[in-house]
């Protein structure tokens, strides 16, 4: 056996004869690399693509409808930002084998641990309400009564995690992520101008009309929807639950990079769908209405696909966000918290998940629930929480006592990350200023 083999299979592989272990013996090194990557693949794609949730669909199509392809460069800029942030989570998760909430609690004390947990649960719960609101909206456009469809969606989301198998949940979720490739087909169907797309993706520019309040809000919303606090908690807990090994770091990084690229491409395609509506002079309040109006020009298939993809985005967002809440709560409370455990062995973990999903679905079914206020609350709270959450991540990644020399940030990592934190803080302050003084920027 080579050193390469020894490095992937822990103590048992150091002997010529392994203790009984499930796996696969291969002769070709490239096949070994491909299979190893596929065993590690999952958390990176899921954390990135689940972030293209219902709120993201709404934000990106709105950006396309208002500014065409002029804001595509922001997505390209956000690609390395999302990757750098989540790559730190990968190292932290693999090195400690524990979730993010547990790390903050153990290394920064009770106040910060509880603050992060309460803030996360609050933002997550409000986000879940928006996910179910999107499911309800899409269902009503498909002539399915929300009072039937929303509870069914909630039950399906609960069944998804109750199998007591991490692998089963991961396979289903990866499949749902890959369904989002349909956004690429929609973008091609609405016949975009490729020259304009390439130009506006690589050349940053301010749309005609200059910096207005609506542009500032939209830019902050795009940043806020592309990088969300729950992602830090979700991916680290997911990696810990999957028990990724030190030797998996490079494959987990690749998983995260591919996930980031996939997500940004899908987000760009959503903007192109919004741009198509703009080109046809369609104005809309939400993506479901856009789908309805766009079908005159693009056909019934595009209408149905957009509505189904809205539901898919909300389902993906709901499972990932609810899991990040359940994992975080389990870590801080010291409860068993793993998708590999059956319900009877981790009741607190599963009950948290079920309560998150069930309560959010129930709120959406209440007539005249203040959904607009909830959406505003999500955007503002997430904007406030994100920079501080990344500061803790940055401090943890410089903790040599915790990570040792091998996994702590290098100097260039720190330079990049502090730049990201400063930009996010500035955006957070602008958001706060706009909340306090709504007439700060000229109206659009």
């Amino acid at each position, binding site marked *: *056996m080579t050193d390469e*083999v020894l490095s992937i299979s822990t103590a048992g592989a150091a002997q010529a004869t392994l203790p*009984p272990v499930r796996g696969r013996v291969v002769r070709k090194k490239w*096949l070994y690399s491909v299979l190893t990557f596929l065993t590690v693949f999952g958390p990176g794609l899921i954390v990135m693509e689940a972030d293209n949730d219902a709120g993201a669909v709404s934000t990106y199509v709105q950006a396309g409808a208002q500014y065409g392809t002029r804001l595509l460069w922001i997505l390209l800029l956000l690609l390395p930002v999302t990757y750098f942030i989540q790559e730190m989570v990968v190292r932290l998760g693999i090195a400690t084998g*524990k979730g993010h909430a547990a790390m903050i609690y153990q*290394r920064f004390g009770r106040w910060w641990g509880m*603050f992060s947990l309460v803030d996360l649960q609050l933002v997550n719960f409000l986000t879940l309400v928006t996910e179910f609101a999107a499911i309800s909206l899409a269902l009503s456009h498909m002539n399915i009564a929300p009072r039937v469809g929303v509870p069914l969606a909630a039950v399906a989301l609960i069944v998804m995690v109750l199998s007591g198998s991490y692998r089963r949940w991961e396979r289903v979720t990866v499949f749902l992520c890959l369904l989002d490739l349909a956004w690429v087909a929609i973008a091609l169907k609405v016949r975009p101008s490729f020259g304009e797309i390439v130009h506006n993706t690589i050349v940053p520019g301010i749309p005609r009309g200059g910096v207005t309040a609506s542009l500032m809000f939209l830019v902050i919303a795009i940043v806020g929807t592309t990088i969300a606090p729950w992602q830090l908690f979700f991916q680290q807990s997911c990696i810990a639950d999957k028990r990724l090994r030190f030797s998996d770091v490079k494959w987990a990084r690749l998983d995260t990079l591919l996930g980031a690229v996939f997500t940004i491409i899908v987000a760009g395609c959503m903007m192109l769908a919004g741009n198509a509506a703009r080109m046809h002079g369609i104005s809309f309040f939400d993506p479901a209405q856009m789908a309805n109006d766009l079908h005159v020009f693009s056909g019934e298939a595009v209408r149905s696909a957009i509505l189904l993809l809205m539901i898919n985005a909300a389902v993906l967002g709901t499972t990932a966000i609810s899991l990040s809440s359940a994992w975080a709560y389990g870590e801080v409370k010291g409860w068993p918290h793993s998708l590999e455990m059956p319900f009877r062995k981790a009741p607190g973990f599963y009950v948290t998940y079920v309560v998150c999903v069930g309560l959010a679905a129930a709120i959406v079914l209440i007539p005249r629930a203040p959904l607009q206020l909830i959406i505003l609350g999500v955007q503002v709270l997430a904007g406030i929480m994100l920079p501080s959450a990344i500061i803790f991540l940055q401090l943890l990644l410089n903790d040599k006592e915790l990570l040792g020399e091998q996994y702590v940030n290098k100097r260039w990592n720190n330079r990049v990350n502090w730049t990201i934190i400063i930009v996010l803080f500035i955006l957070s302050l602008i958001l706060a200023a706009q909340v306090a003084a709504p007439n700060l920027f000229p109206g659009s």
Partner: protein
Amino acid sequence: MSVMGLFRPTVIRDVPENHFVVIHPLDDVPEQKIDASALGPMPMTASVRLSLLALRGYLVLMMLLVFYHVMDLAGAFGHHAH
């Protein structure tokens, strides 16, 4: 393979020379990780401690501001602000 259902692992006892073993992380022997709970709180310099204190104040202030704004929008103070 594992992710797409194509990878069918079997029980391995012997590994021939010049062959590679692929083991799913969940089937592998658990690794010894760093025990963060044994380390206790992170040692911090005075400037880091002060910065975190300032951050705590900023976050509390922002949360109160958001709460006031949302209540105002909800008409809790007797008028519709916006």
